[in-house]
């Protein structure tokens, strides 16, 4: 009995220690964002005297919401394109037999281990010669290209599990491959679409290096770039910086609390099965 209580105590101790380890930096970030600058100087890590939103209001006077909007535009377009392209590519790879099927699948699979940096200089040159340099459009190509491998792996996995009868009956009804895929199979892929959307949204929302290399002017900066800009310009105003960090992390945290299970499944599917 006593042994059980000790065991339980140790278990909770470990759980709480890990809670502090993972949660404390977050807590410090949100906590500081509610402070005034002077208050922060005097006692940097204490609780705020009152929840004042002054620092958040200050963000309206900066380019923060331009960055936020830019990120949203790039990520939404890239995710939609990723879904369309990877779903289409997965159909023949999963459901039709042809000789190059395996080599093409492996070609996509290899993409998961390629360091993005190996493609950086050529993509920079390519973007310039396409006249896309320093525009939001420059980011969409690389984002989609590097999202394809995981997405194709997840889609083919799901497609292979659908019953063959679906196609057979559709063929008897005289459906072509396009109608068959978009009208009959694709609607059944909803869980996969949700998984891929969330997974890629997280990755693209936080993407930094392509944005750093392929854009230049503040009006075309995405959120991670903008935050770094802030860090350079407003390093004196720590609470203001923390408010920006909190607000920048908010969309993903919201998605996470709404669709926790889906995210967790998505990450597991994307990595383990791959």
């Amino acid at each position, binding site marked *: 009995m006593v042994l059980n209580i000790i065991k*339980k105590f140790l*278990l909770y101790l470990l759980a709480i220690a*890990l809670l502090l380890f*993972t949660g404390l930096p977050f807590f410090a970030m949100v906590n500081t964002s509610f402070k005034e600058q002077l208050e922060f100087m005097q006692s940097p890590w204490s609780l705020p005297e009152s929840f004042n939103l002054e620092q958040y209001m200050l963000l309206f006077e900066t380019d923060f919401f331009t960055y936020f909007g830019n990120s949203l535009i790039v990520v939404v377009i890239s995710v939609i394109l990723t879904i369309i392209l990877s779903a289409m590519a997965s*159909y023949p790879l999963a459901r039709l037999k042809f*000789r190059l099927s395996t080599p093409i699948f492996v070609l996509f699979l290899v993409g998961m281990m390629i360091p993005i940096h190996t493609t950086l200089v050529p993509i920079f040159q390519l973007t310039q010669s396409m006249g896309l340099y320093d525009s939001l459009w420059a980011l969409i190509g690389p984002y989609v290209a590097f999202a394809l491998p995981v997405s194709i792996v997840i889609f083919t996995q799901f497609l292979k599990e659908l019953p063959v009868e679906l196609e057979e009956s559709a063929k008897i009804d005289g459906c072509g491959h396009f109608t068959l895929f978009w009208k009959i199979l694709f609607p059944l892929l909803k869980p996969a679409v949700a998984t891929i959307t969330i997974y890629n949204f997280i990755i693209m929302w936080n993407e930094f290096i392509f944005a750093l290399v392929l854009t230049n002017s503040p009006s075309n900066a995405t959120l991670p770039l903008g935050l770094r800009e802030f860090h350079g310009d407003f390093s004196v105003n720590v609470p203001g910086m923390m408010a920006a960090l909190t607000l920048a992390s908010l969309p993903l945290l919201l998605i996470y609390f709404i669709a926790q299970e889906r995210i967790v499944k998505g*990450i597991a599917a994307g*990595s383990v099965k791959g």
Partner: protein
Amino acid sequence: MNQPTEKKLVATDTESQAQQKATSPGSAPKKRQKRSIKFKEGWTILLFLAPALAVYGLYVVYAIGMTFYYSLFEWSGIDQDFNFIGLQNYVFQFTDGVFWQSVSNNFLLVAASLLTQLPLGLIMALLLFAPIKGIRFFRSVYFMPFLMSTVAIGILFTYIYDPSFGLVNELLGFVGLEALQRGWLGDESTAIWSIIAVVVWQFAPFYMILFRAAIVGIPEELYEAADIDGASKFQRFRKITFPLLIPTIVTSSILSIIGALKYFDLIYVMTGGGPNNSTHLMATYMYDHAFSYFNMGYGSSISFSMFVIALIVTIFILFIDRKRKGEF
């Protein structure tokens, strides 16, 4: 640029396949019908695959090829002054101390990731199955670091490590260890370790999720059988959970190693490779050469070396994994 060839490759193959199939024995009318279907099928496959292959071919396959091509030149990247120098960039890499420093930092990060992220992730995953009240809350908080952008994490931890008001020094003062207080990121001896700690903080939750998914997938009957045999909790872990987690451990190791080899964001934001190049990784060193010093030829050769190292490591792990599977 290799987009047309890519398309053609698929087209010719599916067509030839269609023809090949069509010449197989069969009655004449049937043969014709089969051929037209197969031919149509070839076009379908091509149309479905072409968009993805075009984008992927251009931004990944072509780009990697071009990186190798650029690495053979002395070239700033901003003018047309190409100067072919063969493999000299690679020869120079061998004598470049900072390059080796960054390679060794990369492998330090690999080792630290394997030895801390994976065990920590496993412990966190196992805890999620323990009889703890409010475990959903614990799980939510445990996972949060993975959702934050690396840039935000980098900025946040710059403040946490700050010498004058940082949380780390504050906590050390609180428990009476003032002697250990220092400028964690400015000190050559602690900078890389301070960053590694942040990488562990960021990615342990990711492995927690992978392990949790794998543990959920273990059939309940195995544990029931073990309980009937009177196995202890530890025996259950050692004889059932752990062996069945090995495939996940292998995948996690691959992801962790590859992740550590291509790490960039945090270093770039927190130290930019300093102080005195002590925290450079291959990726940050490559970035500096290509985009800060405009030395794109040399930058390309570093990034191509990165690619080769990542490739060798992956093949090596897969080889070991296959050998392990062969033994069972």
